[in-house]
């Protein structure tokens, strides 16, 4: 032991025991803090459930469930009130049905093209182009639907109303196409390579392999994609309320104006609804119906996705053979057979025809994928053409005005930036803390799995539901703190919306840190938090940042919840950093677009287009930043991997 080569002093006095006790105290405190953060999304779900049930109870004291389900009219704003929910759901469903009808074939064929056919370079351009479609703020789609698609459709269908379910449905379809395509693509890519090769080695053409082998295996994943996309279409608010109209009609005719659940909520939110009025209860009851519809669809979808992933993992793990009488018997039977099989096989010599089908199929999938890119280009050019002339320095620095020439977006721009900062400040610490707790502390049990699915569902709950929650909770119950329909309430609403997203992406980032790094950290005697703080977080950091930026770009595009929580059309001051100003009224770029589209004059539509450009520039900057960070990180990681011998 006296060998000088091993002279590292191993005496225990170098390690302070008192430090250890303090360390454990700190560990406990941190863990409790993280657990509280993890409890917040659960609290939010309970709050949603509580608020909506509470309000619905009042509603059903006056209206019997029977009336609610059987009435054929919806007139809560008239003197003779009728509450037939099917009037609203029929509109919601017909818009969602049209959207699904558009999105499923396009999304599925695009997924097939991207997963199976697209060369790397093409994929690198087309996939982001397609996915950008779902990142565009829905208010922009509303603009697109009412000012571009409806006039276009009217040229072919003369008796089409200015507001109709058809155009809202078509545009919603474009919005949800990327959801179908990206989840289906994942499902297709999860099909193990061995099974593809199995198909090819039997002499299948590519199309035959896709249709006979790959798609049937990926089917549950594709169903999940459709379910989740449909749920998104059901909850889509801005497109429906701008383009489909506000006429409660019990009809499935897509050519006339209708009113969806979400459009009704927006319609009522635009006026000032006194709390505890009957209309207020109605608002929440309707919202609750929407919540139940989308929530159950989301559960189904996420359950299917998980089941499919597990099925794919379990595939082709051979189990051990059990010798039985019948197996020995059939083995003996081989010897007495005449080998080989009958060789006079008649295979149809139709390879040329089979391959012609293959080429047709390829062009079909390619063309549908291009549709996405083309739509993006049309949308961009039309907005650019309308917006560019208005866009100048004074547009950015003037307040909104009745006069189109003088109007600008100063207040809206500042409001949006304020909301971004506040949302980041509220949602990021809570989200990251919750993710750390769920991923690193909470054991991987059934409860954790259920929580994981639940978070995915919360992320997919229509944002208007959060808006209503904010109206009841942040703007009324917490009025002393938030100041009612204020910037702070809006920031809380946006934080609730992006919180599940932040948690999900952070969990993904933490999960991507290899288990071996954790073991190495524990191996040198780190505590749980030390390991997280010194090893895991630094390694997961770039992906966490990427997730945060994507969450912010989602927050910036929200319109409906802000209208519900009380964004106003006109503001003549810019909030500064003081409690009083944070408690003041607010407006944002998206709500400004909404109010301008609602004006009949074309000048205001141009202002809306210019605002869309500004909004787009901000979202684009955030996204580019996210992509650059991710690529930088991948490159770094790739270099590390290559350095391994």
């Amino acid at each position, binding site marked *: 032991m006296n060998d000088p080569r091993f002279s590292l002093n191993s005496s225990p006095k170098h390690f302070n025991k008192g430090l250890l006790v303090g360390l454990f105290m700190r560990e406990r405190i941190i863990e409790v803090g993280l657990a509280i953060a993890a409890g917040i999304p659960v609290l939010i779900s309970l709050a949603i459930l509580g608020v909506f049930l509470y309000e619905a109870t009042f509603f059903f004291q006056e209206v019997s469930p029977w009336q609610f389900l059987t009435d054929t009219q919806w007139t809560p704003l008239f003197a003779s009130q009728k509450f037939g929910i099917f009037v609203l759901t029929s509109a919601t469903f017909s818009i969602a049905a049209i959207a699904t009808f558009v999105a499923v074939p396009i999304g599925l064929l695009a997924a097939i093209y991207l997963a199976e056919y697209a060369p790397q370079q093409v994929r690198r351009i087309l996939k982001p182009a397609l996915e950008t479609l779902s990142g565009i703020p829905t208010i922009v789609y509303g603009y697109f639907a009412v000012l571009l698609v409806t006039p276009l459709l009217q040229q072919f269908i003369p008796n089409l109303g200015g507001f109709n379910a058809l155009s809202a449905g078509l545009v919603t379809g474009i919005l949800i196409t990327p959801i179908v395509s990206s989840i289906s693509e994942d499902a297709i890519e999860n099909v193990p390579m061995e099974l593809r090769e199995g198909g090819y080695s039997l002499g299948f053409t590519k199309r035959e392999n896709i249709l006979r082998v790959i798609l049937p295996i990926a089917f549950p994943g594709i169903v999940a994609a459709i379910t989740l996309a449909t749920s998104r279409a059901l909850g889509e608010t801005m497109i429906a309320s701008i383009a489909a109209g506000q006429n409660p009609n019990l009809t499935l005719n897509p050519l006339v104006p209708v009113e969806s659940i979400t459009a009704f909520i927006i319609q009522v939110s635009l006026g000032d609804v006194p709390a505890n009025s009957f209309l207020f209860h109605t608002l929440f009851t309707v919202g609750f119906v929407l919540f139940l519809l989308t929530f159950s669809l989301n559960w189904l979808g996420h359950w299917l996705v998980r089941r499919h992933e597990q099925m794919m993992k379990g595939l*082709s793990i051979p189990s051990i053979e059990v010798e039985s009488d019948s197996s020995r018997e059939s083995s003996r039977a081989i010897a007495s057979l005449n080998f080989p099989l009958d060789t006079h096989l008649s295979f149809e010599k139709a390879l040329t025809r089979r391959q012609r089908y293959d080429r047709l199929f390829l062009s079909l999938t390619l063309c549908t994928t291009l549709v996405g890119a083309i739509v993006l280009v049309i949308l961009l050019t039309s907005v650019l053409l309308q917006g560019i002339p208005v866009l100048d320095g004074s547009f950015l620095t003037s307040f909104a005005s009745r006069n189109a020439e003088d109007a600008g977006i100063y207040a809206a721009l500042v409001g949006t930036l304020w909301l971004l900062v506040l949302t980041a400040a509220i949602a990021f610490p809570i989200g990251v803390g919750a993710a750390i707790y769920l991923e690193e502390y909470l054991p991987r049990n059934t409860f954790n799995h259920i929580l994981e699915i639940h978070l995915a569902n919360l992320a997919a709950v229509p944002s208007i539901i959060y808006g209503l929650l904010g109206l009841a909770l942040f703007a009324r119950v917490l009025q002393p703190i938030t100041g009612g329909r204020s910037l702070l309430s809006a920031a809380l609403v946006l934080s609730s919306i992006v919180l599940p997203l932040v948690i999900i992406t952070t969990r993904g980032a933490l999960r991507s840190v290899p288990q071996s790094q954790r073991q190495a950290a524990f191996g040198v005697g780190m505590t749980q938090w030390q390991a997280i703080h010194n090893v895991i977080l630094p390694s997961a950091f770039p992906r966490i940042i990427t997730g945060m930026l994507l969450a912010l770009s989602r927050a910036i595009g929200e319109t409906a919840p802000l209208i519900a929580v009380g964004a106003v059309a006109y503001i003549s001051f810019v909030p500064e950093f003081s409690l009083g100003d944070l408690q003041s009224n607010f407006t944002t770029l998206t709500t400004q677009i909404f109010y301008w589209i609602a004006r009949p004059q074309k000048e205001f539509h141009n202002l809306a287009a210019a605002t869309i450009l500004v909004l787009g520039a901000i979202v684009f900057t955030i996204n580019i930043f996210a992509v650059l960070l991710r690529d930088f990180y991948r490159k770094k990681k790739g270099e590390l991997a290559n350095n391994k011998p």
Partner: protein
Amino acid sequence: MNNQQAITMNNPVFTSKSEQESSEILPEVILQAEDVSVSYHGIPALQNISLEIYKNQITSFIGPSGCGKSTFLRCFNRLNDLIPETRMTGKIRFFGQSIRRMNPVEIRRRIGMVFQRPNPFPKSIYDNIAVGLRVNGYRGNLDDRVETSLRHVGLWNEVKNKLKKNALDLSGGQQQRLCIARTIALNPEVILMDEPTAALDPISAGRINDLLMTMRQYYTIILITHNLKQAALVTDRVAFFNVEINSRGDRVGKLIEYAPTLDIFVNPTQQTTWDYVVPGSRYSS
């Protein structure tokens, strides 16, 4: 008496095999590789392989991991075409015709393949066999063909009452025999087998070996194996591959020796072959 002995004794060709080889009257050449090299992302994986595959023989490829046996095998049915950035040079002739000029889909029907891990489709047992027949436009009676194929791999008695059950419910060995049945149902002229028993337990592997022994005189099979016993037991010819490190430091697969099985195991001409096939030989001297 076990199955293997029973089969070999009932098999008249087996006993005359050694005479045939000694007189070197070689059977018809089915596949011919000429100076085949494959590179992956511009890095050579194997280089300058030339060999001939004879009709109704089992030829095995042996060699250490990473020597390019699988890559080479997958050249014969052009399965490497599906992997981006993979380039093959040289020529492979199938009945004298260059496979590059032929349609890959047609080649893959005529040159079947069985993989290391059993990969039945997650469909019914029946459909696993029927789907290949349907796609390739088989005009005969499907039921009969499915039954015959299953009988020929010794699976019929085990599965005849559950043809509509999912193939994934079968054991690994049964799945692999189903994959062989699926392949022979299409009446391939050559069957490529990439370590077909490596992922299986010894009993299942033994049964596949039995099956190979029965098939050997009727099928042209190329078999990759790490199991020297299997190579010695069931094959007619052996090609030994090894890894060489070229001047740029790439690990490149090379064909070292190609000869009748007996010669490889008893009388190899190359030292590296000797080192590989005789366990412990490299430590003895």
